[in-house]
Every structure is written in C-alpha cells, then in structure tokens.
C-alpha cells in the first residue's frame, strides 16, 4: 500500500514538472498575470492594514466625558457610576475631580497660565466628570444617547470625540468595503487566468488523459497533477508578489519617515508586520485560486 502511494506520488511529481516545463510560456504568462492581480490586491491590503492600525490607535483613546452639574448630589453620582459600570458596551469608567480638571486644563494652556492662579479649590469653576471608555468605537453614538437618557442623574452635558474620528471611522469602513469588492473582482480574474492555463495544458494532454481513462486511472489520479500544477503556479505568483510589495512598502515607508509626514509614520504598520499578514493570506490565496481554477478546468475532460 505504501509503495503504491510512493509510486503514484513519484509519477505525479514527474508529470507535473514535465507539464509546467512543456507549457513554460503559458505558465509564465499566467504567473505574471496573477502577480499583477495580487499586487493590486496587495496595495489595498496594505492600505487597509494601515487604516486599521490608525483607527485602532485612535479608538483606544476614544472616550466620552460626562460632565456633572455643580449641584449634583453624591447619591446621583453613585447612581450614575453604577449605571455606567453596568453597561456592557463600556470598557471602563473613571472619575475626574474638579482639581484634576483644572490641572489638565492649565496643562493645555501654553500662555497666560497666571490666569489660573486666581482659582483654588474653593472657587474652582471646572466641573467634575466621568470619563467613559467604550469597547467599540462604532458604539460611541449609541452609548452617548444611552447616557443622555440618565438625565435625572445630575448630568450637565456630554462630550465625545472630535469629528475627525467619525470621519476616520467612515473612511475605514469605506476602504474595507472597497477592499472586499477589489478582492472579489481580482479573485475572479485570477481564477479565469489559472483556469485558462490549465485548460490549455489539459487540452495538450487530452490524448494522455484518454489513455489514462482507458487503462483505468481514477479521476482523482488524473486530476491531481493538474491541480498540483495550478497550486504551484498560484504559490509562485503569491511569493513573488509578497516580495515586491514588501520591498516597495519598505521604500515608501522610508520616504514617509524622511518627509513632512513624520507624525503619521508612528501609526503605520511595520514592513515585517505587513509581510507576515500579507504572506499567509497571499500563499493561501494563491493555493486556493490555483487549486480551484485547475479543478474546474479538468472537470469537463474527465467525462470520457
């Protein structure tokens, strides 16, 4: 049984290598086309990864400030804290005292700090507040409205993230959707390319397939070399595409670092991170596209 398996494997590897070599030009053409498709896909993926990174770093800073009115009772404060801590969408609840608020405010002032010297703990005009961190940035609006409904708990007003955060989130969603559309279109193109290449190979070997059928080779056995061929082409394309993207991303990152966009670069993903995330995805993608494309291409020739 084992020797049968070995014998079949050896024959298959030999046939696959032979077939790729015999159709080297066509194989090369389809590998290059898939590399092109993967490069476009890669640009979108890199973009998505970076936007994810950025939104993640922004999201972690997202907080809602619930300012309390000066005459809020301690019972109201306790009730409110309990309500906030009981909310499943809320990550954490902190409390900022009048003194802390004053200190933070003076920290934001670069000049005229003497202005603040006239205030002390007795006449501090700053309000107390709860600092609420939300688990998911998409829930910000929702949580804000929920907190609004606790109006009898001595809330003066509620403040949360600036407009740019909402804009960034919207953009992130937009890029996500766009990436999926691009992924689908390019997958269809890649599948057709592999399908076409393998169909030509199959056509060139149709006589052989006929003989195989008559001698009693199983469909599985006949199919495997072609599927292997597709997988190998797909993986080669994926590896080349990864190297190109890694190289160019490294270059682009260097450019960003050395230019005015310095502040941005901290939030960008490292080339190694991109390489790992993209690497697994591309190899898997190449493998699947190759396998499925070939599988479909050979199917119709098997009906002898």
């Amino acid at each position, binding site marked *: 049984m084992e*020797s*049968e*398996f*070995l*014998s*079949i494997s*050896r*024959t298959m590897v030999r046939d696959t290598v032979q077939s790729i070599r015999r159709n080297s030009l066509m194989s090369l053409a389809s590998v290059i086309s898939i590399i092109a498709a993967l490069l476009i896909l890669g640009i979108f993926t890199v973009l998505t990864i970076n936007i994810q990174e950025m939104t993640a770093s922004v999201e972690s800073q997202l907080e809602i400030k619930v300012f309390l009115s000066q005459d809020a009772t301690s019972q109201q404060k306790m009730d409110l804290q309990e309500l906030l801590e009981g909310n499943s969408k809320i990550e954490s609840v902190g409390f900022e005292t009048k003194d802390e608020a004053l200190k933070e405010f003076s920290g934001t002032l670069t000049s005229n700090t003497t202005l603040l010297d006239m205030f002390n703990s007795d006449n501090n005009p700053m309000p107390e507040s709860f600092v609420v961190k939300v688990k998911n940035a998409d829930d910000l609006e929702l949580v804000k409205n929920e907190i609004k409904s606790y109006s009898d708990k001595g809330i003066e007003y509620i403040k949360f993230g600036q407009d740019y955060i909402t804009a960034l989130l919207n953009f992130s969603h937009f890029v996500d959707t766009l990436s999926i559309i691009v992924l689908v279109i390019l997958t269809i193109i890649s599948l057709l390319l592999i399908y076409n290449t393998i169909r030509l190979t199959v056509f060139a070997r149709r*006589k*052989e397939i*006929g*003989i*195989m*059928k*008559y*001698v*009693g*080779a*199983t*469909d599985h*056995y006949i199919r495997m070399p072609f599927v292997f061929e597709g997988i190998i082409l797909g993986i080669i394309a994926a590896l080349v595409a990864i190297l190109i993207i890694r190289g160019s991303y490294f270059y682009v990152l260097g450019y960003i670092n050395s230019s005015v966009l310095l502040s941005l670069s901290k939030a960008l993903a490292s080339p190694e991170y991109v390489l790992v995330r993209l690497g697994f995805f591309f190899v898997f993608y190449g493998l699947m596209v190759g396998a499925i494309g070939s599988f479909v291409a050979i199917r119709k020739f098997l009906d*002898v």
Partner: protein
Amino acid sequence: MIEFINVTKTYEKNEHAALRDINLRIEKGEFVFLVGRSGAGKSTFIKLLLREIETTSGIVKIRDHDIAKLTKKEIPYLRRKVGVVFQDFRLLENKNVYENVAYAMEIIGRPESKIRKKVPLALEMVGLSERMYHYADELSGGEQQRVVIARAIINNPSILICDEPTGNLDPLTSKDIMRILGEINRHGTTVVVVTHDLDIVNVMDKRVLTLDQGRLSSDVKKG
C-alpha cells in the same frame, strides 16, 4: 464473462437504435469476433462494455456483475479488468516503448520494482524486446500496434477488447497481430476482436458474432 440481456441503445440524436435487443454470452477464455459494416453498432458495443455509455434498456454483465450498478468511482476498476486495443494505436510520442507500457502500470499505482519486472515480459510476448527504447515514431504500424497490445495486457485484464486492431495494417502484419492475440487468449484472457476485415476472421477459425443494423444477425461457432 460477458453477457448482454435484451440490450437496446438509442442515441438522442438518432431515431434508429444503434443496438436493438441484443442477447449474447461470451464465456471465460473464449476468442470471439464481432463483425459488421460501419454503423452496425460495433462501436456502441465496445462503449457499453467500457461503461463509456449506458444502455437505453437491458443489462450488460461483466463477470456476472451488472455494470450499470457501478458508481462513477468504480468505473476505473472495471476498466482495469477490460483491456482495450485501438485501431489508431494511441501511443504517447514523448515516451519510448518501455515507458508507454510502464505508464499503464504507473497510473494504477504499481510499484517500480514490479514494473521493471513485468514490462520486459509483456514486450517479449509481443516480440518487441529489441525495440524497448525506441520512440513511437520510429516504429512501423505493426510494431506500434504490438506496443498497444502489450500496454493493454500489462495489468492482466480478464477481457481484451480490440477495436479494428488490423485496420491500418497490411495483411501480413495483420496475421502477425492475430497470432499474438491468439497467444494471449491461450493464456486465459477472453478476447473480443471487433472488425470488418473478413480475411483475419477466416484465418482464425473462431466464433463469429455478426451485427447488422443494430441487430445480432448471426452467431456462428466456427468462422
């Protein structure tokens, strides 16, 4: 070994049945000719035996098994028991004689050691030991046909079907091929030769089935 019970085959495109109500039995170890003009249903007969097509009605049995009951996955195993020799040879040009025959063993997963042992024996049986490393285009028609026969018998089929095996060969070479088929038959393989070449039928003096417009018109024990 082979049994046709009330077999009728009609193709969709054609209102005339290719085979009409065929009943026949071929025993183990028999040597049988199936003759008839083109269009008499000979190709349909072969295709039915290999389960390339299925009957419209009736049953085809091989070794007492109704082959219509085979699943798609079991068909290759039927074909390993039924060797086929074609008129147009169907050899692989990029392989030499040895490799062409070995190929039939490779693709059903026979180990290399067995292949090395058996292929020369089969080539010896068809008289091609000297030509083992020649390529198909370096061989004469008769030699090519002998390679095909070696390939067809290498996996020890219980039935050998030959579709016009002498169709492209001169009379002398044809006789040679028939002698080899007779030899294979003597080793116990059931041989069915489909042909319209009456010369070889007369030489061999074996059972002859005649198809005429899809009907079995005669079944003569000795040609």
